[in-house]
């Protein structure tokens, strides 16, 4: 009676990719709740559209490649990519923005490279950057946190707008949207105003001043609503570290370098540079640090490599945010460091047992 003779080990830990992906998605929940609370139902609808698009694109390509579809779909990686893209989009972006972004991410950035595990760039960030460059207007039309909004949309109205571009009577799109805190700060600093002046000239531009007045720019935290979303992601991220799904190296290196570099410039010239906390809790810093930069497929492998990788993202994020042409830079920074990953891996290996250092 012959038996199968596969190789050792013959005992395996109860773990799977699906489990890892589901844990990451669970960790996103606090952030998403905060998101919905402050920015309405748009994000939920975006997530749904993104999920459908991602799964169908993945299934389509796998079918074309004559690969098994079900296991690849059930690993949850496409779903996670979809959710991450949806979280980076403005809550009221039209459906086709989401579809184009997700399809580009899944097809070009992931499946053309062979699917899960082979993509050199983070698919979600490729999708987002492509959208940002191609559709700058749609991608920067954010809505203010619900507490500040004159008129916010309910679930049905949001759905109608996202799918059919139909707004309730008497509401215009421009009235609904405004720039993000990072964006408006940048615009005004570019006009030559100091942070103080922006605050002082309350009458200058009603919408902007309102945004800026609620940003405790000299306080400890980012834009209203944003800080809670960031906090939610921070919470989820810490849980992931606790659960050993991600290692601490990348988030700590990224947030640490962002903190250090923004503190330096803030201390040099608080007039023209935002506070470190503003940088940490605005935009995609928290989401990026815990959920995007830590994507293991595209990150460096060794611990030293991870620290370099994280620092790189932090520094590029600050540089592009502060001096570059785009309001937020986490996506660009992540892609730039994705590019460097193979080289980092090539030069920074781990110090193996029995190899004396030096």
């Amino acid at each position, binding site marked *: *009676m*012959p*038996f*199968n*003779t*596969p*190789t*050792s*080990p*013959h*005992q*395996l*830990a*109860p*773990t*799977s*990719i699906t*489990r*890892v992906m589901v844990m990451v998605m669970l960790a996103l929940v606090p952030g998403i709740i905060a998101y919905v609370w402050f920015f309405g139902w748009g994000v939920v609808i975006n997530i749904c559209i993104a999920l459908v698009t991602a799964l169908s694109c993945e299934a389509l390509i796998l079918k074309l490649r004559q690969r098994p579809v079900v*296991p690849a779909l059930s*690993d949850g*990686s496409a779903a996670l990519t979809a959710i991450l893209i949806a979280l980076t989009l403005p809550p009221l972006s039209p459906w086709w923005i989401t579809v184009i972004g997700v399809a580009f991410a899944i097809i070009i950035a992931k499946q053309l490279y*062979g*699917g*899960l*595990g*082979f993509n050199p760039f983070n698919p979600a960030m490729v999708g987002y950057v492509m959208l940002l460059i191609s559709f700058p207007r749609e991608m920067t039309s954010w809505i203010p946190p619900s507490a500040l909004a004159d008129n916010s949309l309910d679930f049905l109205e949001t759905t109608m707008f996202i799918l059919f571009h139909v707004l309730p009577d008497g509401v215009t799109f421009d009235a609904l949207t405004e720039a993000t805190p990072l964006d408006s700060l940048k615009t005004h600093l570019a006009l030559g105003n100091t942070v103080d002046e922006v605050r002082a000239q309350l009458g200058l531009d009603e919408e902007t001043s309102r945004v800026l007045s609620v940003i405790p720019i000299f306080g400890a935290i980012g834009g209203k609503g944003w800080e809670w979303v960031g906090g939610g992601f921070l919470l989820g991220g810490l849980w992931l570290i606790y659960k*050993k799904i991600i*290692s601490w190296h990348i988030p700590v290196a990224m947030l640490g370098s962002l903190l250090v570099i923004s503190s330096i410039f803030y201390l040099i010239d608080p007039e023209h540079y935002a506070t470190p906390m503003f940088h940490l809790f605005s935009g995609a810093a928290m989401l990026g640090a815990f959920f995007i930069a830590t994507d*293991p*497929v595209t*990150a460096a*492998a*060794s611990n030293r490599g991870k620290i370099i990788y994280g620092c790189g993202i932090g520094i590029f994020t600050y540089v592009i945010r502060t001096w570059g042409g785009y309001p937020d830079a986490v996506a660009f920074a992540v892609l730039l460091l994705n590019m460097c990953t193979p080289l980092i*891996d090539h030069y920074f*290996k*781990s*110090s*193996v*047992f*029995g*190899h*004396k250092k030096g």
Partner: protein
Amino acid sequence: MSHGNTPEKRGDFHGGIHPEQNKLQSTMESSAQARMPAKLVLPLHQHIGAAAEPIIKIGERVLKGQKIASADGYVSAPVHAPTSGKIIDIADYPIPHPSGLSARSIVIETDGCDKWIEYKPEQDYTETNPSHLRNIIREAGVVGLGGAGFPSFIKLNPGSQKKIKTLILNGVECEPYITCDDMLMREEPQSIIAGARIMRHALQADACVIAIEDNKPQAYESICKAAEGIDGLRVALMPTRYPQGSEKQLIQVITGKEVPSNGLAVSIGVVCHNVSTAAAIYRAIHLGQPLVSRMVTITGAAVKRPRNLEVLFGTPIEELLEQCDVESEQIERLVMGGPMMGFALHDTSLPVIKTTNCIIAATRKELGLDRPVMPCIRCGACADVCPVKLLPQQLYWHSRAKEFDKAQAYDLFDCIECGCCSYVCPSNIPLVQFYRFAKGAIWTQEQEQKKSDQARERHEFRQMRVEREKLERAAKRAKKKAPRPKKAAPVDGAKMAEKMRDEAMSQRDSAVDARKAEIQAAVARVQARKKGTATKPDQAADAAAAVTPPKGDVDKKDGSSAAKDSNEQVQ
């Protein structure tokens, strides 16, 4: 002697895992003697090194403990008859090896008397010099019983320069399921301690540490009791973690020192032996008995009465399983060794050998088989648990793509194949097999490279020789003013090889005429012989010689000198 309840360790190793222990099942009852089978199959290669050479003939009667195969070379070990009986075969039999191949084995038909050969215990080992002790241990066929099977006497030789500071007795047994060392430590602590003292004497080691994991409290108690009052002997209780029992990791935990990557433990003054090896050495020295049996754990969910058995080498595994009430149809996989590093066997009829510490008859449920292999997501879980601090995901990436030089750049050969990476892999990738494959492929490449270098050297030498001979011939002919026109001698440079070839061809052409008759005669002769009507070979040769026309000097010389040169090369 010192022992306390606090964990005693000086260093720590990276990573490691805590798999399900599954040790309790097989320690429920005390060990027993396995039944004597009708036939024992003893592979000649049960250890690391060269296979032993049989020194008995088929049909011969042997006694228990009689040497039936002797060591072939330094790194080798003899094989002894595990019981009295008759040699009935010396041939290839399937052996317990991951390849499932067969190898030369001696088969003994047991006579049931189990009659020992006369043996002579060493009176007082402290009076014997270490080299003599090593010799006895070698002749007793003792090899590392922890699983590797390296001849023990070699590891008891500290070499001339090195002072051995610490002798570590490995009773860690970190692999799940296995309990044979545990049982031995519970039941025969005295033999282990006595063996340890012999080893210490042989090595002239300063101190001795017996390392035991804290999941074996009874073994710890029993060893502590036996070790009471012995100077320089320490029993260390360590928190359970796999692969703590791996030599390099254990040395790091006990001494805080890292064994260099391509070095041996001896180079940092440490020697590590398994506790059951110590017991075997005790038997070899104090009792004079060679290694003919060992403790084997029979376990796994397909076995209803898992326990430890003292088993004669060569016993078929199925006999043992039967004694433990196996449910044969439940077996999904049969593993020899532990679940982490052991290998799967293809058949239950294979024999137990010196390195067999455990047999796991695993059921399907136990293995958790229904998990698909997914792509690597480089999650790094493997790197977190790797006790050697490798980057298994990178090794995998390059091994998978057969980029061996890059895999080597990531220190592939430091991998100890402990299986931690595969264990934690969420994608269920057979990582260890990829590394084994890559290592094997690299070894093959290296061998081929060596061989091709050798071939190149020989080819170049041959070209030189042919050239020289041609020159000589040309010179000779010029002297004799031979009528045959001769091609101009050599051209240097790159075209030489081509010229050589042409030259050889034309030479052959000219030789053909002279030799045709001879060859035809020979061919005819061969054909005749093939038909079976031929005369005896030497007669045929005479006949051929008679037909052969006298050959030219040149040709004769060519042939014989070629042979001579070849000879020189070989020597």
